[in-house]
């Protein structure tokens, strides 16, 4: 298929359809509303389910219900809406049903604004809801990568029976780039729904999907199994990209839109003779700690650039365990850090 110039939000929506999305439940919020709008006509066109819910709380619980039925299901929102969904994330994670969530992050806290932000890093990787769990968090840096990661999110959610979030920002959602959509995958037929799904107890014992375990010992066993699964995901699914790290003394670490901006910084710094490289985490959880530690051990400093007050930098520091200095540069409120302000920070290291 040829590349087409496509907006990030539309690309995300269309990629989900191609990945076999069977139901979408969502609520309008800028800067991701184009996802909802696109699906509002494309899903019925494909004979699939689209429903605009009354709130993000309802959206995520509709997702939970459809996930229990064993179909590929998704919702999308932006930061304040994601906060409303956190209860649902926790239930879905504990119940071990697969679901995909898109967060096109905007400035916060509070109502904030509708400009691009990465202020929900902590929320995506550390505090997605109450209790011990993680979501798989995938951060695209381009429209093409957003497409690829949406498809991956469905596959990982199914493979591990868990919740996977694509953590984009307003810039990715709103920008247009040439990109190629994947071929259409068929929707799962009713008889192909997983054996654990709620399909009616015909000729078998009833299936029960719950996150309630009243005995402490039982709930601990459930948690231990969840943790074992998370370790398996961490071992098998950690993803990142490196740019010119082969001889880098200084390392930039950035994700999403800032990740690609830092690629420009690397080019400009290299032109000045500085040996600079970039590590761009693609999975924010699981975090590429091992690789980062290896790069840190031979470098003389790391600069973490984010569109927040410095959130991922905490994971970078944990990963490198003090073996080289780690500095943070962050812009907030929807301000996008540009190469001409990042480069001086790098020079000061």
């Amino acid at each position, binding site marked *: 298929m040829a590349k087409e110039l496509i907006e990030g939000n539309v690309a995300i929506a269309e990629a989900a359809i191609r990945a076999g999305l*069977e139901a979408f439940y969502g609520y309008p919020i800028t800067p991701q509303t184009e996802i909802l709008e696109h699906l509002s006509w494309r899903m019925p066109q494909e004979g699939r389910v689209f429903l605009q819910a009354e*709130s993000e709380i309802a959206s995520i*619980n*509709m997702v*939970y*219900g*459809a996930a229990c*039925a064993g179909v590929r299901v998704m919702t999308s929102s932006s930061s304040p809406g994601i906060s409303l969904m956190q209860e649902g994330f926790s239930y879905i994670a504990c119940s071990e049903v697969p679901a995909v969530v898109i967060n096109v992050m905007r400035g916060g806290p509070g109502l904030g604004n509708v400009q691009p932000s990465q202020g929900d890093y902590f929320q995506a990787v550390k505090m997605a809801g109450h209790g011990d769990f993680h979501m798989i968090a995938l951060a695209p840096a381009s429209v093409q990568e957003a497409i690829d990661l949406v498809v991956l999110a469905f596959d990982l959610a199914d493979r591990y029976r868990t919740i996977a979030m694509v953590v984009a920002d307003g810039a990715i959602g709103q920008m247009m780039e040439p990109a190629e959509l994947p071929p259409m995958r068929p929707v799962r037929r009713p008889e192909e729904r997983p054996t654990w799904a709620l399909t009616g107890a015909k000729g078998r014992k*009833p299936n029960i*999907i719950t996150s309630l375990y009243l005995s402490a010992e039982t709930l601990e066993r459930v948690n231990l199994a969840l943790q074992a699964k998370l370790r398996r995901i961490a071992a098998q699914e950690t993803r990142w990209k490196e740019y010119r790290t082969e001889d880098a003394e200084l390392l930039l670490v950035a994700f999403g839109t800032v990740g690609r901006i830092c690629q420009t910084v690397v080019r400009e710094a290299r032109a000045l003779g500085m040996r600079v490289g970039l590590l761009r985490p693609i999975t924010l959880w699981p975090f590429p700690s091992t690789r980062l530690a290896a790069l840190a051990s031979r470098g003389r400093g790391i600069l973490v650039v984010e569109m927040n007050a410095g959130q991922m930098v905490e994971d970078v520091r944990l990963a490198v365990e003090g073996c080289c200095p780690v500095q943070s540069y962050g812009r907030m409120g929807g301000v996008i850090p540009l190469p001409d302000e990042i480069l001086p920070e790098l020079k000061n290291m």
Partner: protein
Amino acid sequence: MEEMELVYKRPESLTPAHTHYCPGCTHGIIHRLIAEVLDELGVRERTIGIAPVGCSVLAYYYFNVDMAEAAHGRAPAMATGLKRVSPDKVVFTYQGDGDLAAIGTAEIIQAASRGELFTTIFVNNAVYGMTGGQMAPTTLPGQRTTSSPAGREVETAGWPIKVAELIAVLPGTAYVTRQAVLDIPTIRRAKKAIKLAFQTQLAGLGFSMVEIISTCPTNWHMDPKEALEWAKEHMLAYYPLGDTKVSDGVRALM
């Protein structure tokens, strides 16, 4: 020996599990009525239930059908998501008054308004049972609870919500009724209503809900019989029994 006729047995739609409900609690009766209806309609193997948060949180152990456990108040959203991708299934939510009429008000009203094709069984016993008897949105004026120790003062706590009347005004609803399980006649009528609600769903006529006036002897600090009498005298005075919405389609089923 002469062969005897079997006149009473556990419905297939109930599991043999012993329930955790308190002595005298009416959840058991309501469970049984639903199970009998599912058996009679022959839909057990294609029924999916959504349990609430509240006393009936473990309902999935008692119904012999596929079930999921919802977050507090969210059962109608979950049922919506599930039914939309499983239109050939029979879906019901089982919810208490705190779950449906307080924390889950938005979800039930919106689901009813959309005319979702599932059935809600709404158990109204005027109190939060599982957490130990706090004031519910349906607690009667003057009724003492652990969080309204002087009795519900409507000036500060507001008035009890009449859910069956509230839901009935929504155009998406097909069948809404308030029943009770306080004696044999009301129990028989309640079963009939539950059956009609599921038939409404099966016929694709719109949203169906049965509110059931129920008791909570434990948290009302009464013995079961006293509780039944109290409910008849006080609850039925505020919550009159009967249908609040019967669409033409439903009337044709009656």
